[in-house]
């Protein structure tokens, strides 16, 4: 990514060591959140999310396919992510970068491991036909913390996704023309990313903070389940056991506030 002047690094770090952030936020305070659901009429589910100035659009498109052999009665979710060249000066067109793959897979693991979509209800005919959902993540403005912004946008898009009612008749799937069903979303996931800078662990890093991070940790916690369901460390510095446990604890305490934006 971009090279940050050493002086910026020092001043941000000094502030954090003094218990302050350069934009005045508390360590466990997120930036402003704005969620616009149903932004794409041609998508069965969609949302645009602004987290500070980071912007992500998510569209959900269903298709009908065959289930995997080992899960004949479950629908399928596929998460794909595009770090668009418009989102940052360093994002190049071309095959997905490791960063983009990591983002897609962390978001995907959150949805999958939390079991928040009831995949059994996406089965049309066991062993024959199931709904397959493409969840496409379009990052249009990168101003820090793509993980949390993307997860919020995916949550919002899944919650407004509607599928046509499908029936399996004479070896073929017949779709209802006017009846739809809501996507069976039975839980919500709060994804919280912290970065370690100096001696501090701060929630929802801004771009400035991400550019100088020592280590990063992302924690997924379910709303109903109240469980940890995913976690991902990043960055070239280590974290201590206690820093990790602190981050986990903050992920639980800040969860309700975050998820209130989805109501």
């Amino acid at each position, binding site marked *: 990514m971009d090279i940050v002047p050493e002086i910026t690094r020092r001043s941000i770090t000094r502030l954090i060591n003094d218990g302050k952030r350069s934009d005045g936020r508390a360590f466990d305070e997120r930036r402003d959140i704005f969620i616009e659901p149903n*932004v*794409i*009429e*041609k*998508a069965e589910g*969609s949302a645009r999310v602004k987290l500070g*100035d980071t*912007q992500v*659009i998510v*569209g*959900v*498109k269903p*298709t009908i396919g065959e289930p995997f052999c080992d899960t004949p009665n479950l629908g399928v979710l596929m998460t*794909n992510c*595009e770090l*668009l*060249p*418009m*989102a*940052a*000066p360093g994002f190049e*067109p071309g*095959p997905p970068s490791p960063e983009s793959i990591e983002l897609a897979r962390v978001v995907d693991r959150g949805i999958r491991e939390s079991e928040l979509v009831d995949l059994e209800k996406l089965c049309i005919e066991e062993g024959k036909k199931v709904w397959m959902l*493409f969840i*496409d993540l*379009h990052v*249009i*403005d*990168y*101003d820090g913390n793509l993980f949390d912004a993307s997860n919020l946008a995916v949550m919002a898009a899944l919650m407004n996704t509607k599928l046509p009612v499908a029936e399996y008749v004479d070896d073929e799937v017949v779709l209802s023309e006017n009846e739809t069903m809501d996507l069976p979303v039975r839980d919500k996931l709060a994804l919280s990313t912290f970065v370690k800078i100096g001696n501090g662990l701060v929630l929802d890093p801004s771009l400035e903070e991400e550019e100088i991070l020592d280590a990063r940790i992302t924690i997924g916690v379910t709303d109903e389940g109240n469980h940890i369901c995913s976690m991902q460390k990043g960055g070239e510095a280590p974290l201590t056991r206690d820093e990790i446990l602190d981050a986990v604890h903050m992920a639980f305490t800040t969860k309700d506030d975050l998820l209130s934006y989805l109501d």
Partner: protein
Amino acid sequence: MSNDKELRADGRAYDELRPIKIEAGVLKRADGSAYLEVGGNKILASVYGPRESYIRRLLKPNTGVIRVRYNMAPFSVDDRKRPGPDRRSTEISKIAADALRPALMLESFPRSMVDVSIEIIEAEGGTRCAGITAAAVALADAGIPMKDIVVGCAAGKVNDQIVVDLSEKEDKEGQADVPIAIMPRTGEITLLQADGNLTEEEFEEALDLAIEGCKKISELQHEALKARYSSE
């Protein structure tokens, strides 16, 4: 001949554009950006540059160059589109660069590149013209020196009538489509394609109607830029 034209399927007159909304400066990171809605189209355009590029073979010693990437989001169309460039988007990227280039004054930026992204968030007919229109606003927003703000619009033939700004439905069921882009000050044409079935006379009529459409949209581009400057 165009006096007794019938209203179209969506109730528009033959020379009536779909509702348009243009906003400049919608992204933080990009040097310039614009958002455009026309009919059901939702389009974002961004500009980075003039800047260095590691793709040296694209650069020129005596002038800056423009590179355009037209891309459709997977969720922008009824059947999900596979991510990444296909043949259609490669062609549109190429002709969009040709369409925007004549207005740019890049001579003072040798060995540099201006990167334009046109992102089709939702598509409903006429995305290439709308994309060029949005990109021109983003170029202005980025402060790229320009002698004019390029603007695009299509005309075509539907039910044997020449009409402006075809909707997706008209494009699919119509008999011809003529997308163009112009530099409105001189009226010179920087993009021109045609497909379908037109007599020489019909083509001339379509060309003139598209030029008129461009001029109307041009005003909205300027308004959007004015709103952007006044908000700063």
